[in-house]
């Protein structure tokens, strides 16, 4: 079973994403802070990472940078969850090394379509 890392501090969102991923056959591991996420990403080498940008501690952008700069496989897809309230997030997201993003609110019924479209690229 492919392991997916979800870094999300919002419990509800984490649960919704987990439901969708598990339903699609993934094993979900989760982190609720940027630091924890970076550490888990390097340690667990997940199939892909879903990264909330708006995190306590180091944010998703910083976490993404740290993962990309680490000795971990630089090819792990990182998909950002952005809020459209954040100006200029998309540019920052791609600049930090994300492969794609989807916006809040999380629609559990459509999330997998988005993820697969990004991963296929």
């Amino acid at each position: 079973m492919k392991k997916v890392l979800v870094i999300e501090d919002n419990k509800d969102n984490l649960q919704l994403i987990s439901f969708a991923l598990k339903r699609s056959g993934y094993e979900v591991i989760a982190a609720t802070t940027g630091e924890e996420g970076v550490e888990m990403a390097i340690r667990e080498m997940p199939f892909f990472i879903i990264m909330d940008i708006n995190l306590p501690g180091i944010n998703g952008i910083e976490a993404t940078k740290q993962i990309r700069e680490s000795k971990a496989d630089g090819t792990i897809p990182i998909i950002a969850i952005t809020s459209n309230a954040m100006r200029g997030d998309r540019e920052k997201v791609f600049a930090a090394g994300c492969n794609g993003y989807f916006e809040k609110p999380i629609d559990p019924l459509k999330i997998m379509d988005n993820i697969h479209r990004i991963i296929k690229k």
Partner: protein
Amino acid sequence: MIAERKQTETATEHQQVFLTILDSLDAMVYVADMKTYEILFVNQCVKDVFGDITGKICWQALQSGQTKPCEFCTNNKIVDSEGNPTVIYRWEFENTKMKLWYYICDRAIKWSDGRIVRLEIATDITERKRVERELRESESRLKEAQSLAHLGHWDLDLRGNRLSWSDEVYRIFGLAPQEFGATYEAFLEKVYPDDRDFVNKAYSDSVKDKSSYDIEHRVKLKNGDVKYVNERCCTQYDESGNPLRSIGTVLDITGRKQYEEQIQALNAGLARGIAERTAELEKKRQELNETQHALINIVEDLNQKTAELEAANAKLQELDRLKSMFIASTSHELRTPLNSIIGFSSIILEEWLGPLNDQQKENLTTVLKSGKHLLSLINDVIDVSKIEARKHEIILEDFDLYNVMSEALDLVKHDIEKKGLDLQTELIHMPMHSERLRVIQCVVNLLSNAIKFTEKGTVRVSTRNIPASNSGFQRRDCIEISVSDTGIGIPDESISKLFLPFVRIPSPLTLKVKGTGLGLYLVKKIVTEILSGEITASSIDGEGSSFILKIPVKL
């Protein structure tokens, strides 16, 4: 005899003396018979003028060219009816031919032979007459002059208190000579009562002090009129300094006084007029001042009010911005739990967590729908607030209008199919530079409305190019997006309310179709404030509606 002769000689001597005396007289003396007019005697003076006319008829010899005794003969005046001498008749006679005047004394005397004869003594008074005439003329001229000048003169004999006035003084005082007592007191009595003491003192002082007397006073006339006079005089004194007489003049200055009074009245009138006019001007000036002050106060008030309004306006703008920020942040906080409600409802309803019975499905569907409705409401509120707070993102992109329209249609395709509506499209390719997402948002909004309010029939979407020259409202190239339907339409009276916030047009579908009341308000805000375009709506009630959006190709 000798004595007699002597007596006779003596008589003759006496007669001779008398004759010499008569001849020495510088007057003509002659004697004429009263009946025959025969001249009986002439003296040397007659002879000097007429020659020795003794024995001639008097009226012939003395009055040449006459055919009968003189008409003015005085014979009948010097004798009575019986021919006896009566009086000496004295008269003056002008010999017009000789241009001479005579003073004549005629009397009847008994001649040496006993008959009564006329003795005439005529003295040449031509010179006296001339002087008299000249004096008269002179006096007349003086009178005239005095009359003309209204100047009279008077003479007061101080020892006898006799006052004599010239005619002009009488005229000035309005008196006849017989009406005047001719004394100083009588004069004072005619002076205007109020002026009497002053006149008396002035005259007395001038006499006492030998000073000049030059005063003006009033005179009261019998008829009540008042005259003004100027009096001057000088007084003569004897060796001891006692006053003898005063000679003075009276000048009628009533006319001058009247002129003076008129002039004074005129001056007073003028002065009053000027004072009144000045007062008026001053009043006007004060009024102007007051008006000016009032205006200045008003302007100051206005300035203050303007400042207050500006301050209030700034505060309102700040409050408005704070309100929008508050709504935006609050809405964000509302949205997060709402997303959870929607998300979890969705997966439960999809039976990811296990099968549901019909009752559960129905209830959960209501929860999901309400959640979605609430979310769209919150999203619209956030959007409106951002636009109003000018906090909205500006994301300009290059895109093809065709693709944008396709994207929008993709989002509603599911709903159109679900309702079984016919979709007609007529779309053009047009490269644009604008806010792509906002264009999609507007088109989706219009399409959603069209679908919501159309039960059956067609939703028609078309785009076309409007070159700058025809665009009218803007001198730029525009595109027009038209979304029309065959739905319930909008009553005429409601068209104007379409774009107002939280207004929902009452219709049979209002209760059935959920709406925020912000949709078209937001579209209009986006179109006009973000896309620099305009939106218009038209409708036939019961037959369908049409919304036309015009936006510039390049923002």
